[in-house]
């Protein structure tokens, strides 16, 4: 009988020992809101975990350097959804594009309180404001298409569709015209679609290089387009390399086209500094600079580290770069001087994907 008791005691002791290692229940990360609201800082859109969960928006305060995580859910009591693609501020409203969620959430850019939802979208990507009543929202649409949805800003509803090249992506407005980079979406394309913002009619499609995704206007009014190139079906090599293309918007002609050499690395994420004179982009495991006066691509990187995404803060004059680490946990955001010297880093959410400077 003593042996029986011994065995029993050891079974129970074992359970206690192992269960004793139990950590306390996890505690949700608390969100701190700056007293003055989300004014002087940078919004980081975090895509969210692959396949499940939700994306978030974090806020980095320039004055204190503090970061507020998941500010949308903590203010409004519901998550953004997957995949938080981008955010744009227009007339003090924030337009947060949720890709798989097929919607855009509209918030007050200072308090982040919800101010409406734009629904019935399919694979939305980016927003820009046109005037006080109208905005454009680019989306891939269903299948091998691309389109710009016309948004009524008073009602947050879609009032019309403009067909563009495949996979409508970033947009810029120059004068009364909107230039849409058509990145190919589920297929391939090679055009920038030009839309007359008054009539909502397509003026022309400018052939650039393969799969243009990002574009920026410089100090001289010229438009720069970064084309990612076209992969083979196995994504092992580029059948068309990437290129950096300059367009003169006054006649929509290409004035410079600089092909990249690599057949295994696609350039991406074109940004421009506060003076609109130096471009930066991600290429081949580094961040490269390109002066707008230069007619050759730089051979050496400013930052020798590959990133998931880039942004340029025109206020602090610094480059924001994101590292999603393992794509399953909170990523990192690093700040760099334009010289390439790292300033500091802070935590973003899961897969930090885009930046919106306020």
């Amino acid at each position, binding site marked *: 009988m003593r042996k029986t008791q011994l065995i029993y005691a050891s079974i129970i002791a074992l359970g206690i020992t192992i269960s004793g290692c139990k950590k306390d229940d996890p505690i949700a990360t608390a969100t701190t809101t700056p007293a003055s609201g989300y004014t002087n800082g940078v919004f980081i859109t975090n895509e969210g975990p692959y396949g499940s969960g939700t994306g978030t928006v974090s806020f980095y305060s320039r004055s204190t350097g503090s970061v507020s995580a998941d500010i949308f859910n903590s203010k409004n009591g519901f998550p953004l959804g997957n995949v938080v693609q981008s955010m744009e501020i227009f007339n003090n409203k924030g337009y947060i594009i949720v890709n798989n969620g097929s919607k855009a959430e509209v918030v007050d850019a200072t308090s982040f309180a919800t101010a409406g939802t734009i629904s019935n979208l399919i*694979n939305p990507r980016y927003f820009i404001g046109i005037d006080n009543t109208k905005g454009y929202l680019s989306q891939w649409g269903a299948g091998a298409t691309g389109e710009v949805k016309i948004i009524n800003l008073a009602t947050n509803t879609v009032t019309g569709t403009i067909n563009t090249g495949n996979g409508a992506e970033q947009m810029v407005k120059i004068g009364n015209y909107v230039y849409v980079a058509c990145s190919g979406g589920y297929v391939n394309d090679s055009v920038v679609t030009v839309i007359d913002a008054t009539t909502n009619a397509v003026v022309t499609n400018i052939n650039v290089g393969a799969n243009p995704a990002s574009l920026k206007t410089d100090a001289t009014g010229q438009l720069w387009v970064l084309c990612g190139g076209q992969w083979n079906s196995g*994504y092992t090599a580029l059948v068309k390399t990437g290129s950096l293309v300059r367009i003169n918007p006054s006649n929509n002609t290409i004035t410079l086209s600089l092909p990249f050499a690599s057949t295994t690395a696609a350039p991406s994420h074109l940004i421009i500094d506060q003076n609109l004179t130096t471009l930066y982009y991600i290429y081949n495991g580094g961040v490269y600079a390109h002066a707008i006066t230069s007619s050759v691509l730089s051979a050496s990187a400013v930052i020798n580290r590959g990133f998931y995404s880039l942004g340029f803060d025109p206020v602090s004059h610094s480059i924001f770069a994101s590292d999603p680490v393992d794509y399953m*946990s909170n990523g990192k955001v690093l700040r760099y001087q334009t010289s390439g010297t790292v300033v500091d880093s802070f935590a973003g959410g899961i897969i930090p994907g885009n930046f919106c400077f306020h």
Partner: protein
Amino acid sequence: MNLFKKIVFVGAVLLALCGKAQTTIDSIHSLKEVEVSVLRSENFAIGNKSEHLDSALLNQYSGSSVADLLTSESQVFIKSYGLGSMATSSFRGAGAEHTTILWNGFNLQSPMNGLIDLSLIPSGFSNDVHLQYGGSGALWGSGAVGGTILLNNSIPFNKGVSAAVTTSYGSFSDRRQQTEVTISRKRLVSSVKLFNHDAKNDFEYANTAQFNHPEQKQNNAELKEYGVLEENYFQINKHQKINTRFWYQNNDRNIPPSMTQQVNAANQKDELYRATSEWQRTGDKLTLLARVAYFDERLRYSDSLIHLDAMSRTKVTIAEGETRFSIFKYDVINIGINNTYSEAIDTADYILAPAQNRFALFASYKIHTKNNNWKAVISGRQEFMKNTTIPFTPSAGIEGKLLKYFTLKVNASEHYHLPTFNDMYWSQGGNPNLKPESGWSEEVSVMHKLRYKAFGWELGATVFNRNIDNWIIWLPGSSGLWSPANVMKVWSRGVEYKLNVSCTVNKWKVSLSGLYNYVLSSVEKTTTGNDASLNKQLIYVPIQNAQGSFTIAYKGTSVSYNHAYTGYRFTSSDNTEFLKPYSVGNLHIAQTFNLKSSYLRLFVQLNNVWKEKYQVIAYRAMPLMSYQVGITLGI
């Protein structure tokens, strides 16, 4: 609807309590198999913890899927994407691809992704579900890392003709019909099982992922499935038997959106043919077994919103032979070969049409005491595959009686999991140079069992330890392309408890059971080096879960209540995000009326009776209370 539910509930309770029904069938009495099993799992899986879900339990879940069965009745964590949606299993904190599912000894894991969707397997298609915990590469080869689910079929000879028809209706337009006809003669048994199931699954829930948490109806969740299982058993002579089985199934389901999505248009269609045959010769000195299987499975996944229409088809041919004999009185030797040929065809998603041939040699040597109270086994398996080095996987186990009422089990096994076709040959990112995931698992169980007159007691505790190295993870490379690599190392360990108490007084039978798991599954080597996921719990692995069930039966009436608790699950690898624990209670009431030469069985199943709002996977909605009422007529 709510009132109707209440009426059904009250009616069923009254029916259950009145107890006037004339009956002799004890519905929780389990049918004992008379035949001595020749299965490897029964004879050579020694020292591993195992659980048998008997025919009485399977009867209760006959209209449900294996996913529903295991969610409520086992210690296996079932990762479900929602009602009618995909569900996979996690044994002891391992991945879904680390479970081997054997149907009468044949591995059903898809060669494409190493998974099997348990929501697509009808519980009623097996009459014995056996869960074997722990790794056992030596017995089952690739994939038997976390544990093994064995779905077995057997029908005894000489039982006459039996038939049953079941129809049920449940919440969310859930309709199920099943028919079963068995002819059991002296030397021949034939059986046909048919099922048909369709549901809208349009349950209402408060969508906390949308502004103002609106009441929403689940959309795009319709499913239709039907299937047939045909079995024949033939006793050739005193020593020889042969059987054939044929399984056809067709599934067509829409994939509902997550709570954060507004629309979804995804659909998945599966169609499968599975044919097997087994021959056995049992003798005093020598047992010979030969089995062959051919599986042909098609899948079509389409989603118009993301421009996807992917088709695939896999064919698997398995041939296995075993011979069993003894050298002296108290030992058994088992030597076997297995050849498995798998190919994926009719798909545009691979670089080449992938094909794989695996040949395996396996052997076990078992010794036991004269009274069979103690047994010990050593086993080993070596698989051979072109261009891949597969480790030799040994295992050793011992179990036996300790003192009067205790049983001790000890096992140590090596395990491995080969990369799947998707891992190796996916046209966008496949990596043909992957190594198998591999490691060791060890476990010790102690059980205290006693039976005093009509009172039965069983308390068991198991401690386990397991390492998985070279864990394959898909990560995006510099081109943004996702590609798999052997990067992670995961250490799992934990303790599992179970308790069963039963008591029979007069015609009353009461049983109570409880299960508790505490599992730590931590990342010892992360995907990117020294990141914040180091030493953290794997995502979607609950540290704690517990289950309890209570059954009371009197004559032909039975009432069962089952309660399952699942603890915190992390959703980010740095463990900063998590899902809250949840408890789900289900009630099952059945009444059997025995008529002259037939019987009638009525049942009511109430799921999630406490209306728990919960998510198994982040933002995948689950229904509140639902019901199912059904009737079986049998002879």
